[in-house]
C-alpha cells in the first residue's frame, strides 16, 4: 500500500519537475533580454538537479546523487560566468 503510494508520488514529482523544466525552457526561449535568459538557465539546472535526485530515490543507487552534485557545482560556475559577462563584457578581468 505505502510502497504503491511512494511509486505514484515519485511519478507525480517527476512529472511536476519536468513541467517546471519546461517553464524555465520557455523563459529561456522567450526572455526579452539576456538577463532573463540567464535566470531561466539558473532555474533549469536547479530543476534538472532535483529531477536527478528523484531518479536516485526511484533507482536506489548513489550514482544519480553524484551527478546532481556535479550539476549543482557546474551550474553555479556557469551562471556566475554569464552574469559577470553581462556586467563587464568579459569573464576574467
Amino acid at each position, binding site marked *: 500500500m505505502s*510502497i504503491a503510494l511512494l*511509486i505514484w*508520488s515519485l511519478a507525480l514529482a517527476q512529472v511536476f519537475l519536468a513541467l*517546471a523544466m519546461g517553464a524555465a525552457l520557455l*523563459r529561456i526561449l522567450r526572455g526579452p533580454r539576456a*538577463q*532573463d535568459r540567464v535566470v531561466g538557465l539558473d532555474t533549469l539546472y536547479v530543476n534538472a538537479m*532535483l529531477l536527478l535526485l528523484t531518479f536516485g530515490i526511484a533507482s536506489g543507487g*548513489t550514482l544519480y546523487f553524484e551527478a546532481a552534485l556535479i550539476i549543482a557545482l557546474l551550474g553555479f560556475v556557469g551562471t556566475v560566468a554569464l552574469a559577470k559577462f*553581462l556586467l563587464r563584457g568579459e569573464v576574467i578581468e
Partner: protein
Amino acid sequence: MNGMAELPAWAALVTAILLVVGATMTLIGSLGLLRLNSFYERLHAPTLGTTLGTGCIALASMICFSALQTRPVLHEILIVVLVTVTTPVTLMILVRAALFRDRAESTSGVPGRDAT
C-alpha cells in the same frame, strides 16, 4: 525499484509527502518565472524551488536511504548547503548586471535611485 519493498511504511509515507511538496513548490516557482511581468519580479519566483524544493526533496532522499540501509545517510546535505549558499551569490551578481545594463540604457521602471 531494487530493495524498495522492505522500506517501512512510515518512511514511505514521509518520503512520498516530501517529494510531492517539494516538486509542487518547484513547479510553482518555475511558473512564477514564466508568468510574472518585469525582470525584477521574475527573479523572486525560482528561489521557491531552490530553498523549499531542494530542502524537501533532499530530506525525502535522506529519509528513504536512511530507512533502507538502517543507518544515517546524510550526504544529500552537501547539495542543500551548496544550493543554499550559491543561490544568493548568483542572484546578487545577476541583479547588479541587470541594473548596470538598465541604467546604461536609461530604461524606465528601474528600481532604486538613479545612477550618478
